[in-house]
C-alpha cells in the first residue's frame, strides 16, 4: 500500500484575491491554512485566556447596558411621560430605535440565507458573526416595543391568549403583524444560527480539555459526530432553512414598513415603503457587519478567513443598497410632485427645508453620498476607510427613521397642532443603553462561541473537494 504524501497547500495572499476575477476563482482562505489550521485559528480564540482588550470592551459595553437598565427602570416606574413624547408626536425615539435595530438585524439572515441560495461561497467567512449580530440586533429591537407600552406587565395583550376580559388582538392591524413578524424572525434566525453551530460545537467539544467545557459544548452539540448520513440530512435541512428564511427576511421589514404605509399620514402613506425599507435594512445591516468585522478580524487574528475580499464584497452590497435607498428618496419626491397632493408635497418639502432639515441632510449625506465612495477600489479595500464609512451608514440610517417618523407627525394636516419634538435624557439613555445590550451580547458571543463557521469554511476550501487535483497528483494518478 502506498502512503500518500501530504498535499502541500498553495499559499494565497491578498493579491491573489483581488486580481483578475474572470479567469480564476478567488481563494477564500489565505495564508496556505490547512483544515487543522482553520480549526485552531477559530477555536483558539475561545480557548485562550481572555485578553485585556476583550475585558475593556466588555466592561465598556456593560456600563452602557447599565444605562439601559436605569433608563428602562425609570421609564417603567414613571411611565412614558419621561420621554420627550408630546402632542402631536407620540411616536418618538422608541419606534426610531426599533426600526433601526430591526434593520441592522437583516444582514445576518441575508448573508446566511440569500447568499447561500445564490451560492456565494464567501459568505462562510462572515455568516456566523453576522447571524449572531442579527440575533442581538433583533433582541435590541424587540426591547423597544416592549418598553414603549409603558405598563410592560400588560404586554401580553398583543398575544392571542384567552383572557378574563374575553378580548382578542386585532389581526387587521399592521402593528400586530409586526409582533408576529419580528418575533418569528428572531425565532427562526435563532434556529438557523443554532443549526449552523451544531458541527462547530462538536469541534469545540472534541477539543475541550476541561470537564465543564466538554459538558456544555457537548450538551449543545447534541451528540454530533460528523456522520455523512447526518451531513446529508443536515444539508437538506440547511437548504430548507435558507429557502424559507429568504422570503422571511424580505417580509419582516416589509411588514415593519406597513406600520407606516398603512396609516394615512402624508409621507408615510406610500407604496414604495416595503422595497425601500428592505433595501435600507440590508444597507444598515451590512454597515453594522463591517463596523464589527473590521476590528474583530484584527483583534482575533482572523485576517486569513475574513479577508479583504470579504470586506470588499460587503462594500459592494453597501454601495448597491445605498444607491437603492438614494433612488427611493428621489422617487418619494418625484411622486410627491407628480401625485399633486398638496399635503404630500408639503410633507416632503418640509422634510428637506422645514424644522427638521438638519436631520434630513445628515441622512442624505450619510446614506446617499458616503456609500458612493465605494465606487473606488482603493476605498473598498482599505479597512479603516470602510470602517469610517460604515459608521456613517449606521448614523445615517438612524436619522432616516427619525426623519420618517418625526417629520410626518410633527407637521401633520392641522397647523395649529404642530410642534417641535425633542428627546429627553431618558430617550438618549435608552438609545445608548441599547448599544450596551448589543455590544455586551456580542462580546459574550466572541468569547464563548466560534465566531467563524469552522465546518463551512473548510467545506469551501479547494482541498475539500474529493476531486481536487492536488490529491490525485500526490497519489500519482
Amino acid at each position: 500500500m502506498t502512503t500518500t504524501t501530504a498535499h502541500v497547500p498553495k499559499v494565497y495572499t491578498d493579491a491573489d484575491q483581488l486580481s483578475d476575477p474572470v479567469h480564476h476563482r478567488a481563494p477564500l482562505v489565505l495564508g496556505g491554512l490547512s483544515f487543522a489550521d482553520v480549526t485552531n485559528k477559530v477555536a483558539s480564540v475561545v480557548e485562550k485566556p481572555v485578553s485585556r482588550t476583550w475585558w475593556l470592551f466588555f466592561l465598556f459595553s456593560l456600563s452602557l447596558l447599565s444605562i439601559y437598565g436605569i433608563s428602562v427602570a425609570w421609564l417603567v416606574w414613571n411611565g412614558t411621560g419621561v420621554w420627550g413624547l408630546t402632542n402631536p408626536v407620540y411616536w418618538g425615539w422608541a419606534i426610531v430605535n426599533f426600526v433601526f435595530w430591526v434593520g441592522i438585524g437583516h444582514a445576518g439572515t441575508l448573508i446566511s440565507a440569500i447568499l447561500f441560495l445564490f451560492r456565494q461561497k464567501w459568505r462562510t467567512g462572515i455568516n456566523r458573526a453576522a447571524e449572531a449580530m442579527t440575533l442581538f440586533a433583533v433582541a435590541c429591537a424587540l426591547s423597544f416595543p416592549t418598553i414603549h407600552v409603558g405598563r410592560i406587565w400588560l404586554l401580553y395583550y398583543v398575544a392571542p391568549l384567552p383572557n378574563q376580559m374575553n378580548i382578542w388582538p386585532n389581526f387587521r392591524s399592521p402593528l400586530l403583524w409586526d409582533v408576529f413578524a419580528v418575533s418569528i424572525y428572531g425565532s427562526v434566525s435563532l434556529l438557523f444560527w443554532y443549526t449552523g453551530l451544531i458541527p462547530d460545537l462538536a469541534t469545540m467539544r472534541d477539543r475541550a480539555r476541561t470537564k465543564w467545557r466538554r459538558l456544555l459544548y457537548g450538551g449543545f452539540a447534541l451528540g454530533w459526530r460528523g456522520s455523512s448520513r447526518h451531513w446529508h440530512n443536515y444539508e437538506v435541512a440547511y437548504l430548507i432553512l435558507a429557502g424559507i428564511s429568504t422570503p422571511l427576511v424580505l417580509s419582516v421589514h416589509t411588514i415593519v414598513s406597513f406600520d407606516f404605509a398603512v396609516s394615512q399620514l402624508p409621507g408615510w402613506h406610500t407604496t414604495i415603503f416595503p422595497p425601500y425599507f428592505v433595501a435600507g435594512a440590508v444597507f444598515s445591516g451590512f454597515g453594522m457587519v463591517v463596523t464589527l468585522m473590521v476590528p474583530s478580524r484584527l483583534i482575533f487574528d482572523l485576517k486569513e478567513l475574513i479577508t479583504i475580499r470579504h470586506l470588499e464584497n460587503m462594500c459592494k452590497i453597501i454601495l448597491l443598497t445605498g444607491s437603492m435607498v438614494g433612488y427611493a428618496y428621489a422617487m418619494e419626491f418625484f411622486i410627491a410632485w407628480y401625485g399633486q397632493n398638496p399635503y404630500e408635497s408639503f410633507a416632503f418639502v418640509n422634510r428637506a427645508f422645514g424644522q427638521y432639515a438638519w436631520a434630513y441632510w445628515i441622512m442624505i449625506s450619510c446614506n446617499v453620498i458616503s456609500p458612493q465612495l465605494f465606487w473606488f477600489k482603493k476605498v473598498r479595500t482599505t479597512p479603516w476607510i470602510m470602517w469610517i464609512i460604515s459608521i456613517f451608514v449606521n448614523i445615517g440610517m438612524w436619522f432616516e427613521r427619525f426623519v420618517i417618523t418625526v417629520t410626518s407627525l410633527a407637521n401633520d394636516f392641522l397647523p395649529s397642532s404642530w410642534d417641535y419634538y425633542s428627546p429627553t435624557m431618558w430617550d438618549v439613555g435608552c438609545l445608548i443603553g441599547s448599544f450596551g445590550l448589543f455590544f455586551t451580547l456580542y462580546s459574550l458571543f466572541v468569547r464563548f462561541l466560534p465566531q467563524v463557521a469552522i465546518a463551512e469554511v473548510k467545506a469551501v476550501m479547494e482541498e475539500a473537494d474529493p476531486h481536487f487535483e492536488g490529491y490525485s497528483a500526490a497519489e500519482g494518478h
Partner: protein
Amino acid sequence: MATRRLYGLLAEFDNPAELYHACEQVRDAGYRDWDSFSPFPVHGIEKAMGFSWSFIPWVAAAFGFTGAAGGFALQAWVATTAYPLVISAKPLLSWQAFIPVTFEVGILSTAIGTLLSMLIFNGLPRLHHPLFGSERFEKASDDKFFVAIEAKDGKFELEGTRAFLEGLGAAHVEVVED
C-alpha cells in the same frame, strides 16, 4: 463493569479524496451497516456511499402548511367568532389582512419541523456513542476522515474486514468497543 461489546472497526483517512474512494469500495463490497465521518460535508459522498434521499422536505412541508392553516384559522376564528369587531367597515372575514400572520406562522412551523426532523432522522440528540470512545475520532471534527463498519453487519468479520479497510489505504484501523 459489564463486558464490553464489539462495536466495529474504525478506519482513519487523511483527506476527502481518500475517504471518497474508500466509501465507493465499501459500498461495492456490499456492506450495509457502515458510515463515514468528516469534519465538513464532503461533496458527492452520498453517491459514493449509495444513498441520496431525505425525508426532511416532506416533514417540513407538512409542518409549514399545517402551521399556516392553523395561523389563518386562529385569525378567522378571532375575527368572526371570538371577538367580532367591524373595523374600517370591512367584512369580518377580511382574509387579505390575515395573510402576513399566516405567512409568518407558516415559516415558523416549517423551521421547527425542519430542525426537529433533521435531528430525529439523525438519531440526535444522544449523549453517548461508541465512537466517542476512540481518541483518534476526536479529529473527525477537525481534519481527519473516518469509515466505520459495524460488527452487526452480516459481512463483518474482524480480521477480514480489518484487512479490507487497511487495503483501502487507511492511515490507521482500530477496534471500537461499546
